């Protein structure tokens, strides 16, 4: 699909269940940048589900994450021996607030920070070029957990970090990502939770001058996953690529909110999220906000969301939103499309001898292939196609 500047392509949003619309996700006269940010819980009342940023959310399932109380559990971390130049340290709650690039933007992440018992900081020394991806596995044993993580990449450093969540938990987190001058970070967040996990996360990344962030989010597991990613392009010449891949089956609610804030001149951003849905009550939400501030001349931005609805009853919401405060930009566009893999497509493929399950795989593989190649961590890319095939096998098992 080639959709040019400032258009929203809804051409494929034909089926009733395949929902896609271009509602602005902020009221016309309030900027996305005006939303509250604070470590103070009183700033964020318990969401009712009517608020702008919660209106598509599975608020009832997320409710435990709004409770202002300490929790007993935690996620168990596994991590390989760290290479030279990389450190993992414990940081007090107070220090963690100081070192975060921003305060939390909603109640769940404010509570995560408040009750994390202190943050963990993954710090990469300036100038370190780390060849091998740093892989952290966070495993839940089914209990409640809160987390605060600081990712700090020193100037001119270069590193890939893969964080995988497994097991089950009712988990909220606040992740602060600080990418220093001319540094490059490839951050991959894999949500391969078991079926009953509930996860709300906020990631706030700040990019300094000439910094590069490639951020990939892969959400396959969990009952409810809600990730809210902000990239603040605060250094001239910085660049961000945000990729997302999600696959929701029956009973899963997956929400990905994004905010790309072009604060200074000559920055570049690309957002590419793709999701597949299968199963009667599968539900996904994508909200992509981009703000080009008055100062951000020479901005080049494009965001895209595509959803593929494989079975009846699934629902994908897709809400792109672009605020532009200066006319002096290189390019700004967005596209959102929700398409159905329908009976006619299935018939066409099967009439050429291709079995039903093979037909589905063919379409889904094709849909995700280019996106998977973008993740840039070969170990993850390899495993991912298999994981998607497994999801599809589960869809079939449900069909029978």
């Amino acid at each position, binding site marked *: 699909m080639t959709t040019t500047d400032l258009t929203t392509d809804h051409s*494929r949003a034909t089926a009733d269940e395949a929902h896609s619309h271009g509602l602005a996700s902020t009221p016309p006269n309030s900027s996305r940048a005006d939303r509250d940010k604070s470590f103070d819980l009183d700033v964020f009342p318990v969401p009712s589900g009517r608020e702008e940023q919660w209106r598509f959310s599975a608020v009832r399932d997320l409710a435990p994450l709004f409770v202002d109380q300490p929790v007993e559990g935690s996620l168990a971390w596994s991590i390989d021996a760290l290479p030279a130049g990389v450190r993992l340290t414990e940081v007090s709650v107070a220090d963690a607030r100081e070192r975060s690039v921003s305060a939390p933007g909603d109640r769940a992440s404010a509570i995560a920070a408040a009750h994390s018992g202190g943050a963990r900081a993954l710090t990469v020394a300036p100038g370190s070029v780390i060849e091998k991806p740093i892989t952290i596995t966070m495993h839940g044993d089914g209990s409640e957990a809160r987390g605060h993580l600081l990712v700090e990449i020193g100037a001119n450093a270069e590193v890939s970090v893969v964080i995988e969540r497994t097991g089950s938990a009712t988990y909220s987190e606040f992740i602060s990502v600080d990418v220093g001058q001319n540094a490059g970070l490839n951050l991959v967040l894999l949500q391969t939770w078991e079926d009953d996990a509930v996860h709300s996360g906020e990631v706030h990344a700040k990019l300094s001058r000439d910094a590069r962030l490639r951020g990939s989010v892969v959400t396959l597991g969990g009952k409810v996953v809600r990730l809210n990613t902000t990239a603040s392009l605060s250094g001239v010449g910085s660049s961000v690529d945000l990729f997302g891949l999600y696959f929701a089956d029956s009973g899963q609610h997956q929400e990905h909110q994004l905010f790309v804030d072009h604060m200074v001149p000559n920055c570049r951003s690309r957002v590419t999220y793709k999701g597949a849905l299968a199963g009667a009550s599968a539900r996904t939400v994508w909200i992509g906000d981009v703000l080009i501030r008055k100062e951000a001349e020479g901005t080049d931005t494009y965001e895209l969301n595509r959803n*593929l609805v494989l079975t009846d009853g699934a629902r994908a919401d897709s809400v792109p939103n672009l605020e532009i405060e200066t006319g002096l930009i290189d390019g700004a566009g967005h596209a959102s499309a929700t*398409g159905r893999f329908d*009976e*006619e*497509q299935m*018939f*066409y*493929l*099967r*009439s*050429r*001898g*291709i*079995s*039903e399950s*093979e037909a589905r795989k*063919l*379409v*889904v593989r*094709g*849909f995700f292939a280019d996106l998977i190649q973008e993740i840039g961590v070969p170990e993850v890319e390899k495993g991912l196609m298999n994981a998607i095939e497994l999801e599809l096998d589960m869809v079939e098992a449900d069909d029978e």
Partner: protein
Amino acid sequence: MSTLVITDLHVSVETPEGTKEILRGVDLTIDSGHVHAIMGPNGSGKSTLAYSIAGHPKYTITSGTVTLDGEDVLEMSVDERAKAGIFLAMQYPVEVPGVSVSNFLRTAKTAIDGEAPKLRTWVKDVKSSMADLRMDSSFAERNVNEGFSGGEKKRHEILQMELLQPKIAILDETDSGLDVDALRIVSEGVNRVKDKTNVGVLLITHYTRILNYITPDFVHVFVDGRVAEQGGPELAERLEAEGYDRYLTKA
């Protein structure tokens, strides 16, 4: 040598107003190497016949039989029918986003043959068939039928027929919407496959123009869900001159 036998086929569709019978007792036998042209007015049920043979879920067979070399086709799933050797070139080929033509063709060939084709010869076969059908090689990397023009879609259908080598091919208005050059290219494609594989062809058309390129052995006039008359190529000439009025007033 293969034979497709259609006996007293009755087919209906579900509509909001209730069940509607469209085919009312079709009898037709197609042997390898023969071309049967089916001509008839709009809405007479030609596509319904084609889809019913291929197994489209929209159509309900209420009575009658379809066999291929004695095997019960109606018992088979859609993909089993294709593997048994039935091919339908559709009147309106479907777009399949995200699936490239080359991937689609290879997957279909593998499914039909039960094993992956030898890479070297396969690539060569695809290339030469595409060249014969004047399809630019860039089509291989495009998504199936996505953004294809009407004529390109029809060539792509014949490309599949050439590569999948069915026993019986049903061509539903493959000639509609083609200009003279494209019509010739597509017709030559059909003839080439017929010479090579001795495929039996059921050629659904509104126009005798294509019959100048592909000579039918039999012509059937299809009216109101059944075959109203059959004959040789001369029948097509007469239909061209007289139209279907004769059959319609009788019905």
